[in-house]
């Protein structure tokens, strides 16, 4: 385990030193590969940083989370370039997921950070942008066979529209099959709103999004397994 490098990257994130973090990763990758840097260096580092972020009650700076997401994007780009040069096979993705800001919400930063971390973790992310209607979310999820929708809202007034998305999931008969992850500043202020607006789960920080999507994906699979059992004569 490259403890010194991990500590160096966390220190760089804390200081918002994107270039410094990239230098550590580049140096590591020169002796290994960017693929290995993702698996053995950056993934555990971001997990550690995510735990630190969550344990700080979401009060670590937005800048630190933003820099971490940029570093993840930087390294992911280098992995893709490495694969292109070596004609390596693209690993299977964890699955297709859909993310977007709910209708009337125009605050994209949190959603973009989550998308970066999800892609870094191997999800095939379909980002629909801001002000996404429930119908657009469901049309895309249905066409992809996505089991998780991630809906972001910053304020209480727009978070209420997540209730409309919940209704659309249920109306189309996808209850349990499509899981609804919700996030945004308002859910940190008022966690009870996750259930009130029909969310199936939320994450303490953008860095915790991928474990949440893992959990929701598995819940969707378990739901279908149970359903199939119940329907078997």
């Amino acid at each position, binding site marked *: 385990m490259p403890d010194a490098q991990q500590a160096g990257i966390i220190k760089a994130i804390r200081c918002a030193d994107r270039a410094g973090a990239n230098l550590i990763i580049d140096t590591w990758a020169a002796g290994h590969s960017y693929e290995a840097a993702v698996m053995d260096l950056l993934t555990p580092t971001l997990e550690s940083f995510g735990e630190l972020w969550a344990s700080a009650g979401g009060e670590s700076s937005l800048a630190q989370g933003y820099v971490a997401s940029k570093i993840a994007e930087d390294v992911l780009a280098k992995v893709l370039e490495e694969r292109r040069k070596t004609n390596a096979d693209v690993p299977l993705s964890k699955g297709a997921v859909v993310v977007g800001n709910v209708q009337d919400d125009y605050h*994209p*930063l949190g959603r973009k950070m989550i998308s970066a971390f999800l892609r870094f973790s191997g999800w095939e992310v379909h980002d629909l942008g801001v002000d996404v209607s429930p119908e657009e979310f469901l049309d895309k999820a249905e066409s992809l066979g996505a089991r998780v929708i991630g809906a972001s809202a910053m*304020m*209480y007034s*727009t978070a209420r529209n997540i209730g409309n998305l919940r209704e659309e999931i249920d109306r189309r008969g996808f209850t349990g099959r499509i899981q609804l992850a919700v996030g945004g500043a308002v859910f940190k202020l008022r966690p009870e709103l996750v259930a009130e607006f029909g969310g199936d789960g939320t994450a303490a920080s953008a860095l915790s999004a991928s474990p949440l999507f893992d959990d929701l994906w598995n819940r969707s699979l378990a739901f279908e397994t149970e359903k199939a059992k119940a329907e078997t004569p």
Partner: protein
Amino acid sequence: MNGLERVLATVAGRPHDRPAFLLNAGLAGAKLTGVPLARYFTDASAYADGQCAVRETFEPDLILSPFLFTALGEAFGSTSVIRGNSAPNLARPAAASAEEALRLPWPDLESQPRLLYLRDCVRELAGRLQGEAALVGVLASSVDLPVLILGMEPWLDALLFDRRNAQALMERCGEFIANLANALLEDGANIIALSANFNSPTVVTEEVIRSLTRPSLEASFREIRGPLILHHGGCRLAPHLKSYLGLPNVAGWVVDARDSLAEARSTLGADPVLLGNLEGPALDTRSPEAIHAECQRILADRAEDPHFILATSQADIPYDTPLENIAAIRQAVSELRAVAP
């Protein structure tokens, strides 16, 4: 005592007949007068009618100019939308980067329509209130105004990775906001309230605060010729007050509803005015009895604090809030006796 006298007594620490209170009740004004929000947030007379209705119905001691940061963005070319009964939301920023924002034409305080709306609201309210309540001009500070021009991500990106342009933009924003604040004071505002989220350690790094945002606030606040209230703007403030202490002309502090008033007072010292800490956006979800009890608890906690003003924090009180919920705040305040230092 009238509202302005009560507020001035609170600032000075002189005896006053009851605690002063403030409502972020922009939307409630539109509801009371039945004016569509699209007109309310573009017609200064309609806004003034609404706030006078708020004053007559609930008797708050401070009245706010529009808490409408989108109007500042629109003055630079950003666009906003109003959906349902919510306050306008910024939809499309005017620029994609700090560098691009610096090339935008700078709006004229005397002729730009959205700035004139804000100024006319203050002029109308000053004429109608006639000193019966303190009039607060609400603005974003030099470190938050760029968000309204270019959006949050490009602004954060500039502060972290493009410091030369970030600093240049804050210099221009600082001068602009100081000029606009002084114009509002000349128009009749008694106090200017500003947010400064991008000086919070919950948003940027300590190094950015030290080298960029705090110096910008110092330079801009120094040029404003009136008392300032620093509004928490959505971030917790009490644990991070040291990033703001000592800024010029700041006489009052609105803390977040999650903050401890005792912690804030301990850090601020005895004299500055402390405002909070009812959660305004949650008032529609609670009963009048619960709100009344919460106000009583807060006021009892601050009974020995002659510089305290009960206030709703965070964003506007939602439009659909039953009026009796807001009246419960007024009721709790009116039940208290004189405040003596």
